[in-house]
């Protein structure tokens, strides 16, 4: 893969939950070594977009290329190979609660490499050093604080030295100081390992601190995709509302209001779970 092939390329992505059109013609490209922030309020579709980038959901139409490969046409083995070259830090950490922190971090190595246990131990402790959690490998996830869980999740995400790292809401649920230290960690990881990092967040402070480019999602559409400066100076009203934490006036549709009051349901039964692949 050459230097200028995008790490992630999304072209005209459209997705539905049942009848509801969630993502509308989303297109974006993330360059190697870039920290790309996907920002938007609740219900803007940013989590859905992330799940599509991770290959956990299948789109209605459009293509998603990760590290140059279209993830929806890959064979199972190729997809498995691709997944060893990307890391994901989930919002809740998603550490396996039945394993110690060390075993959690070592799991990808044990499953995908033929390294001996001594080497695996060294790599595991090395990654724990990187996220400033040295010496915590024997604790269980339930014994860690919120910030430590996020750090451990980062250690597990980078243990295979991925080219691409996804972070879902890295600062959610943390106090400002710890959240800021997670931001520093993200910056340090990019500088040290040169990976592309995609961060999904609604936290403005951390967005402006870490982002190279920002993609603002609103109601399933890309509202803006530009550098931090350009986004800050954008004159689009909705972007400014988002940046200045103004609530938006609800649209006025008397018919819809009456229908809601009368309890006439629209068909929104289908949930995300129905379309999930595998288990």
């Amino acid at each position: 893969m050459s230097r200028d092939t995008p790490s992630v390329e999304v072209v005209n992505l459209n997705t539905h939950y049942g009848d509801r059109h969630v993502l509308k013609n989303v297109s974006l490209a993330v360059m190697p070594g870039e920290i790309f922030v996907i920002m938007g309020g609740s219900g803007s579709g940013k989590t859905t977009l992330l799940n599509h980038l991770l290959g956990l959901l299948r789109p209605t139409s459009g293509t998603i290329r990760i590290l140059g490969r279209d993830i929806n046409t890959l064979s199972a083995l190729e997809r498995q190979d691709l997944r060893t070259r990307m890391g994901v830090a989930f919002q809740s950490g998603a550490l396996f609660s039945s394993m110690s922190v060390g075993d959690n971090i070592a799991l990808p190595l044990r499953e995908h490499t033929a390294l001996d246990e001594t080497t695996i131990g060294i790599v595991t402790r090395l990654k724990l050093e990187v996220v400033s959690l040295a010496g915590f490998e024997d604790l269980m996830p339930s014994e860690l604080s919120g910030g430590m869980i996020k750090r451990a999740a980062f250690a597990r995400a980078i243990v295979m030295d991925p080219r691409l790292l996804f972070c879902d809401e890295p600062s959610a649920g943390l106090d400002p100081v710890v959240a800021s230290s997670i931001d520093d960690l993200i910056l340090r990881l990019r500088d040290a390992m040169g990976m592309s990092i995609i961060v999904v967040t609604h936290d403005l402070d951390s967005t402006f601190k870490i982002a190279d480019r920002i993609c603002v999602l609103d109601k399933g559409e890309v509202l803006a995709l530009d550098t931090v400066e350009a986004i800050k100076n954008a004159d689009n009203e909705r972007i400014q509302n988002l940046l200045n934490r103004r609530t938006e006036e609800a649209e006025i549709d008397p018919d819809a209001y009456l229908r809601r009051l009368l309890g006439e349901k629209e068909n929104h039964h289908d949930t995300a779970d129905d379309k999930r692949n595998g288990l």
Partner: protein
Amino acid sequence: MSAFTRFLERLGRGAARGLSEFGFAATLLGLAIYWLVLGHWRRQPVRAPAVAAQAMDIGIAALPIITVLSTTIGLMLAIQGIYTLRTFGAESRVTLGVVLSVVREFAPLITGILVAGRSGSALAARLGTMRINQEIDALTVMGINPIRFLVAPPLLAMMILMPLLTLWADLVGLFAAGLYISLELQGTIAGYADEVLSLLKLNDLLHGLAKSAIFGVLVTIVGVVNGASVSGGAEGVGRMTTRSVVHAISAIVITDMIFVFLVTR
């Protein structure tokens, strides 16, 4: 009339849901066996330590309670057998009834029910918690197939351990019955043992063991299906865990009847 159509609609929806759950279970079983057999060539081997850990959990840890309950069952059968046969004055023939009931029915059933209660529910709770904590997504994005990693090891462990546990329950149950019978009818344990060996056919023993292996598969798949269908947080986990025990025990008893019907007639 509208109440009746509503009833029909509920019935139809329930049947469709049940059918789709049945299909999900069959798919899971197929995939788990696929990974057990072909995992090695798809670079996703089912690892022996994982199977051993599950086997410890399902088997060794269940030994004490299985021992206690099979003792009780053996004693109960001996007491009931002697009581019933006394009406014909045939209490000396009690061993035949006890041997066949323990080996063909009671040992596999009690083992199945205990394992369903202990391990089937634990499996459902574990998978359910992993699902709501995004741990299953985490496995998937790491390139680790969740079925291979989470379903295949307990399935294999169950298929090996259930017959072994049943064999143990056979031995304990028959021994306990022997103690009571030899005391009550003034015989000796050695005489009872001789009688058991002459009455017990390999066919009867295998009947029980084969059933128990099937029960193991049922318990695993029911636990996994319920665990994987969890939604709605901790309350959902609790609900599906209870459901998995009820379903597993029902499945065991019904399958037992079908198996006996097909094999014995």
